[in-house]
């Protein structure tokens, strides 16, 4: 079904979050189109929805 136009959502988790995700990240994870982390340890390996591109800053 067609919806109103909406922007593409990209959430980049902070470089400071090495071992775990912030509360905002955990809340928004199922809703954003691109979920990017900068440390692999921040997310579990079972979830392929998160992208880890290494350091982006």
């Amino acid at each position, binding site marked *: *079904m*067609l*919806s*109103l*136009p*909406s*922007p*593409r*959502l*990209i*959430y*980049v*988790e*902070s*470089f*400071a979050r090495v071992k775990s995700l*912030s*509360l*905002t*990240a955990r*809340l*928004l994870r*199922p*809703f*954003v*189109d691109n979920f990017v982390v900068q440390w692999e340890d921040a997310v579990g390996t079972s979830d*392929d*929805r998160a992208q880890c591109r290494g350091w*982006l*800053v």
Partner: protein
Amino acid sequence: MELSCAAQHRHRHDGVAWLGLAPTRTAAAAGALFSTTTRAAQMLSISVWDALASLWPIIKVLAVIAVVVTVRLLSILPGRQKRPSKKRSPSETCSAALFLGSGGHTTELLLLLRSLNPQRYTPRSYFVSSGDDFSRKKAIAFEQEWAEGGATAASTSYTIVTLPRARAVHQSWLSTPISTALCFIECARHFVLPQISRRAASSRPPELVIMNGPGTCVPLVAAIYVNRVSIHARSSPAS
């Protein structure tokens, strides 16, 4: 009914006695409140059950709406497959909305933006929280850097939008739903309104939102999801 200082001190150390005192006072207070409420309800000549019964049709309608919205929402979540993005030619621009949460978030996001080509990602709108002068100044300085770097006038067009804070630091959690709702309304004004009213659309609505926290992102995403959940017959497919 204040205990004397000495009595308080005594009870704090005598663990069992303190436990025995507190529930009694709480229970008494709760009991007093309950009896007052029921007396008030009796005075109004309606019982709780009658009130519920009269509201039942409304409750049924709300429940149906909630189910429909939930099903619609689950069907549009991005999930595992990537949302198909339309192909763009190298000359096409993409309008971007950049959320600058305060402090370290702002610094990081602006560092991320360094790798973007300002010629392609334009017009840009920076969303800052009210009272966050640091982010505002940083955004202006960043844009000036780009302008000095030789970018064309069109690609240095940017706007700064101020959003009310969803929750200020140390804000009481009781007032947080209200401030979050106010923030959501403002976000809806920026993202939903231009889509439903041609009059309200001033410039090109953003096609991309980049954010890295903190909390004010949540009402922002919620406002955008109002657009996604809505069903609207349009000739062009959702991008």
